[in-house]
């Protein structure tokens, strides 16, 4: 380490310390060394969680719903950002939902998409359904429709803001240069704007995905009981009436951390490879 980058390293360490300390505590609690119900060193919680189909189905379901929501939000954010970049009102409207708390977004989805929600009532008024259960199950459903819609809607403004920032600075300047060099508007868009926006938005999309993987409020209001979303499973274990099972909550929390960290590392490697190839 050189003297020049020492402050940066210290800052990184300070920023990472809550995660490192939390992970270390969870690591100790996962093997029964600390925490409620700690009964001496044991790998039982680790084995039980990692060999349980409940865990892996919950992980798969959480990754799938978070992944689909992130993809939809990112695609919509890029398209909308490109469309509204020239309109101040459009830009404002695109980022407006950012102030809505996640739990409020989930409640809105519940009131809108539930079998007794607004859409269901409109369908009833239109004579399309007779009772609430005639309306498709979009909330607490195994496909996670309402959860995906609410998550995508909530992450959309954050991603749109990022895409707009890229478009209004870097990409706009390069696009102008391309146009002055004779590129058509279509060529400039696909060869310059689109790749810049995608690349610029990717880290934000990654952050949104990592957030959705671990968030509790929206699955608590919208997810089904089976499969059990990773955050719900973790909380359930953390308050399990069997004290000995609380160590499992720490194993699940570490599992979520490993998944998020793996995705960040994978992205960093891909980005590094991309930069090496372009150089």
């Amino acid at each position, binding site marked *: 380490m050189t003297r020049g980058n020492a402050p940066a390293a210290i800052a990184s360490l300070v920023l990472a310390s809550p995660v490192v300390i939390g992970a270390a505590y969870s690591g100790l609690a996962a093997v029964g060394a600390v925490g409620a119900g700690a009964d001496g060193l044991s790998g039982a919680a680790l084995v039980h969680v990692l060999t349980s189909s409940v865990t892996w189905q919950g992980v798969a379901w959480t990754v799938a719903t978070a992944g689909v929501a992130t993809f939809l939000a990112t695609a919509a954010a890029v398209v909308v950002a490109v469309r509204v970049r020239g309109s101040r009102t459009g830009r404002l409207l695109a980022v407006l939902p950012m102030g809505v708390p996640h739990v409020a977004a989930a409640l809105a989805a519940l009131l809108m998409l539930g079998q007794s929600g607004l859409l269901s009532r409109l369908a009833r008024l239109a004579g399309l359904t007779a009772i609430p259960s005639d309306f498709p199950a979009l909330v607490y459903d195994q496909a996670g429709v309402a959860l995906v819609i609410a998550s995508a809607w909530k992450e959309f403004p954050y991603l749109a803001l990022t895409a707009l920032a890229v478009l209004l600075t870097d990409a706009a300047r390069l696009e102008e240069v391309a146009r002055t060099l004779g590129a058509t508007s279509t060529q400039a868009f696909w060869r310059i704007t689109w790749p810049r926006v995608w690349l610029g938005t990717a880290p934000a999309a990654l952050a949104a995905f990592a957030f959705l993987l671990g968030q509790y409020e929206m699955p608590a209001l919208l997810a089904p*009981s089976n499969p059990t979303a990773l955050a719900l499973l973790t909380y359930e274990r953390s308050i399990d009436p069997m004290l000995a099972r609380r160590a499992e909550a720490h194993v699940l929390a570490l599992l979520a951390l490993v998944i998020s960290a793996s995705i960040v590392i994978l992205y960093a490697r891909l980005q590094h490879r991309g930069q090496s190839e372009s150089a």
Partner: protein
Amino acid sequence: MWRGDPAINSYVDDWVAPRMRSLYGVEVRAVEGQGAELVNALVTEREATGVRPGTASLVWINGETFAQMRRENLLAGPWTDHLPNTRLVDTASPIIGRDFEQDPAGFESPWGMVQFALIYDPARTPAPPRSIEMLARWIRSHPGRFTHDQQFTGMTFLKGVMYALSGGVETFQGGFDEGKYRVGRDRLLEWLKPLTPYFWRDGTTYPLDVAAMHRLFANGEIDFTMSNNQNEVVTKVRQGVLPPEARALVFDDGTIANAHYLGIPTNAPNAAGAMVLTDFLLSPEAQLEKLRTTVWGDGTVLNMAALPAPWPSRFETVMADAQALPRDVLAQRARPEVHPLYHARLLEDWRQAVRRGTP
């Protein structure tokens, strides 16, 4: 304490706290924290600060939380005999005197008593089922209109069914018995197996908690919600959470009643203040106020015979509330809790066999 009910919060913040301040100079500040979370929090505090004072002087607990706190040596005591108002408590009641069959042993003081009840709307369900057997028939003839939640209230409902299918609560009394539990559990699962396809959403998913149940009921998606407090229906109607016509229903087979208690953590920063508060909460004045369905509707733990006049008649007047279930009906149908392990095991087995559908 659990801060999920505005009626309870208002009783503590707006009625108890000002009186504690003016009468004793004790500042009461209620903060969020319930059941299992309290155990985690107190263990973490102990690990982080050792024997130094923690953050909570008094905790609201019962059953498994009491068992866990005792196991982890998180509760101070015995101290309840030092309180003047302890002599007014109805300790002869099997529901108040034993906490899920555990002897409080002076480590927790009773605060209130509640009884499980189903909640229904007579306009939608003019002839509700009056027993577990009738409920099974009702569920079959009304597909998709019944469910229970995944947490404490839902498990209390299932435990009540297990009692009824196994010859009553007496079968499970006297500590946890693995053999008796397995027989009871298997009977319950046999009862549930043909019924769950008639549950809400064909039994493929269950509401997370009673708040979700209340929402489904109020929106007409299901015909019954449930509560561990027979009077909650009255307070929830007043809050506008439940429809005005909603009523409580207690099965002829009986429903589970339990008491809730107050404990002082070993690291309490103000144990003396906590004792003064507990004694005040046991006073006839505080217990009567809490009993009013316009306030909280929480049952009293006081022995009417031990109260000086005119308190007994005041309690009788409040208990005769037209909206509440008659006191004698409740007393006749109240079934005590059994060892906390029955609850813990039932929850675990229900999750595996019913929620996951993998027996």
